[in-house]
């Protein structure tokens, strides 16, 4: 059975990191599947799923990645996915996008994420930015969430209205629209 590995790595941003890592996977006949890589200020962060060929063990891959990670100054960790985690998330949930922005202060993400967790809303993607702003630092956050049914969306929407006032932020919470072409 196919083995899947989740690998995360982070280190000082510089040209060559993606090439160095993907060379290790290529040389070891691993397939790079889903991945998300981005620069956060001066650091480069890598999150990826790799499938291993039959003749390689997770330990083989770890030994192959180690020298590259050392050379490029990356801290990395990896784990094998159990079969149940190799499938995408639960079906039947509704995708929504949530955008929040306002003057930066501690607790914005925590309060929003806590409300989501209490409504059984799953955050599937989250991006945040702190930008200087001429008057005060601006915090902006955009996330994709999975809502368990329309009633869940309504309940979360009400809590967001309350949080908007309390946290003094702007909030937009909308169902994801996809156009079939």
């Amino acid at each position, binding site marked *: 059975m196919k083995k899947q590995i989740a690998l995360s790595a982070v280190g000082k941003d510089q040209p060559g990191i993606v090439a160095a890592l993907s060379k290790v996977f290529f040389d070891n006949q691993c397939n790079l599947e889903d991945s998300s890589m981005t620069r956060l200020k001066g650091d480069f962060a890598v999150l990826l799923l790799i499938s291993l060929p039959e003749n390689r063990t997770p330990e083989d891959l770890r030994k192959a990645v180690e020298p590259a990670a050392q050379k490029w100054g990356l801290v990395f960790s990896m784990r094998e996915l159990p079969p149940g985690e190799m499938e995408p998330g639960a079906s039947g949930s509704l995708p929504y*996008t949530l*955008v929040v*922005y*306002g*003057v930066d202060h501690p607790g914005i993400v925590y309060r929003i994420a806590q409300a989501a967790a209490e409504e059984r809303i799953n955050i599937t*993607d*989250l*991006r945040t*930015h702190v*930008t*200087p*702003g*001429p*008057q*005060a630092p*601006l915090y*902006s956050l*955009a*996330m*994709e969430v999975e809502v368990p049914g329309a009633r869940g969306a309504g309940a979360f929407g009400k809590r967001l209205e309350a949080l908007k006032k309390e946290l*003094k932020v*702007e909030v*937009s919470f*909308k169902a*994801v*629209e996809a156009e079939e072409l």
Partner: protein
Amino acid sequence: MPVLPVLTYPNPFLKQKAPALSPGDPKGPQALKDLEDTLSAYPGCVGLAAPQVGCLARALVVDLSRSSRPCENHGRLGLLNPEIVEASQWKPGREGCLSFPDLLANVKRAQRIRVKAFDGKWEQVDLVFTGFEAVALQHEIDHLDGILFLDRIRSSKDLFERRKAAT
């Protein structure tokens, strides 16, 4: 020639809906004059709405002839009480805003709109805009309703920091 400071978020003016001007109100042409003078002071800026300079009135200017992207345009245009009466050909594109100097976002806008409005002499106009000029108009008309471009983001991947060229 007053060049007014452009307000940035979180200035509360930006989230308010501006009331319509009464036809003939001299406040309208005055607002357009101030907006034009202010726009001229920001190179590369193609549009400004009155709430961005602290004036709660339904007035805006666009000037796509200043755009770094060549596009069809009406030149410098000041509009009062603008109203979008037709919108079609929706497409996402990347926008910035003087009121959020460090952010960019992908926003879906109509590529063709028809706008009814009054000009600086309070004469009624009925104009069709296409492409980037249509996008700019929608962005400015949103300002009159207290809607900012971040309110129109439809995906977590549509928000970006403006990367400044290294100096």
